[in-house]
């Protein structure tokens, strides 16, 4: 067996809460292991080299959305990115821009996503619901509809689409692609009774759907491959037709 490859990880270190701390790049070297992900590499560094390194993870399987970071220029999930894909073994890691920095590679996507959820009123709207007879079985849903909702419900709120969006970065009030996906998810749900006009009131302006400049950063960087381009275009068509 040949000896393992050396990896070089350049990591942005900065703790905004620490008095006098300055953003700086720190390089860590380590041996690559088979099927190593960035997440494993970072843990290795934290365990053996620098216990103060901050980064987030929970599920390690691309499900929780906590480990989003900028990997060689691309917003992506650290737990799903293999180190072997980088030919020269040099990997630069930055925290996701557009979110509040907690420290090093850890950002607060939660606050953003919470505000997004509230802004698009991310729940089923149905005035009848209050009067519904709870002992009666719900109407079965057409499987294709259920699939469509599920497809859009796969968003893990990792924030990659927001960091990859030039519009969101230039204009912090912009709802962003995760918000559009959330809207698309409820719009596809026949239990949600909101009309085109209702949606227009929520996102019919330049901070909403008409602010999107079709840069496709979201479409090209969503780790869950949500249908951004197609659904944003759909909402745009729907909203220009509403009155």
């Amino acid at each position, binding site marked *: 067996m040949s000896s393992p490859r050396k990896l070089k990880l350049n990591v942005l270190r900065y703790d905004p809460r620490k008095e006098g701390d300055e953003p700086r790049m720190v390089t860590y070297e380590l041996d690559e292991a088979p099927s190593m992900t960035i997440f494993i590499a970072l843990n290795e560094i934290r365990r053996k080299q620098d216990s103060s390194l901050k980064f987030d993870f929970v599920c390690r399987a691309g499900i929780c959305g906590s480990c989003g970071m900028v990997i060689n*220029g691309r917003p992506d999930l650290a737990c799903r990115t293999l180190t072997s894909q980088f030919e020269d073994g040099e990997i630069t890691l930055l925290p996701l821009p557009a979110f509040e920095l907690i420290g090093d590679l850890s950002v607060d996507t939660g606050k953003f996503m919470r505000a997004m959820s509230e802004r698009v009123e991310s729940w089923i709207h149905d005035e009848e619901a209050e009067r519904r007879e709870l002992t009666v079985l719900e109407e079965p849903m057409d499987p294709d509809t259920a699939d469509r909702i599920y497809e859009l419900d796969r968003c893990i709120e990792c924030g990659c689409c927001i960091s990859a969006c030039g519009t969101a970065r*230039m204009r912090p009030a912009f709802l962003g692609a995760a918000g559009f996906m959330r809207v698309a998810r409820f719009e596809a749900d026949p239990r949600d009774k909101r009309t085109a006009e209702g949606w227009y*009131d929520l996102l019919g*302006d330049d901070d909403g759907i008409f602010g999107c*400049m079709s840069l*496709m*950063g979201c479409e090209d960087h969503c780790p869950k491959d949500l249908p951004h381009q197609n659904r944003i275009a759909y909402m745009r068509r729907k909203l*220009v037709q509403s*009155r």
Partner: protein
Amino acid sequence: MLRVPRGCCLQQEHIMSKVVDGEMPRLLRDEVKKSRWPARLDLAQSFSGLALGLFMWTHLILVSSILISKDAMMKLTYFMEASFLKPEEPGGYPLLVSATAIAVFLLFIAHAGLAMRKFPATWKQHRVFRAQMAMMKHSDTNQWYTQVVTGFIMFFLGSVHLYIMASQPDNIGPYASADRMWSGHMWPLYLVLLFAVELHGAIGMYRLAIKWGVFDGDDPRRTRRRLKTVKTLITVFFLALGLASFAAYVKIGIEHAPHAGERYQLGSEP
């Protein structure tokens, strides 16, 4: 006079119901009910861009008639002036050219005004966008910036060209146009304008298709890949056609410089 601080009524349902029922002044109502204007402006931006894009492609194809022959270009010019309504003499109604130029100018101004809303508005926004480009190296993001830069260039150069066409509509023809290019020193402007228009137009048309999902079909991702290829091919085709036509006019302009100002006579080509 009723005074309510801006925005305060948004959370107050009882005020809102009154507003919607029309008891409140207009100012307040506008604040509560979402305006239809962002939708209209977005549509108008797209339609103006589409119309300009189609016009520019047609325009370049007409201009490139010089590659066939001087006669071909002259005949086409007369045809565009509706010479068929005036069979007894060469030429038609240059006023038609003026009218077209003015119409395109108005469209151009409308489009520039609408699209300008998307320009980075502050140095900070501009810097953030540049940083984003440097970080991501993502082609659609970079191309948007190309559109902003070429659009900005066209503000000035496009206006000059359109004004000349509107004010001197009878000054078009194999010699007249070539003299303007060479003896009139307009060639640098046309060269830059050619690149600006072709890059901006092709990117814009691609973006329109993406933005409204026009050709999405059942595989939007495949469609987008194809559209990108088509966009590149179109850009290359029109740049090549434009450069060839440009070279043809400059060549004629140089040869004709001693007689600059003289008009071309149909059939005088050897």
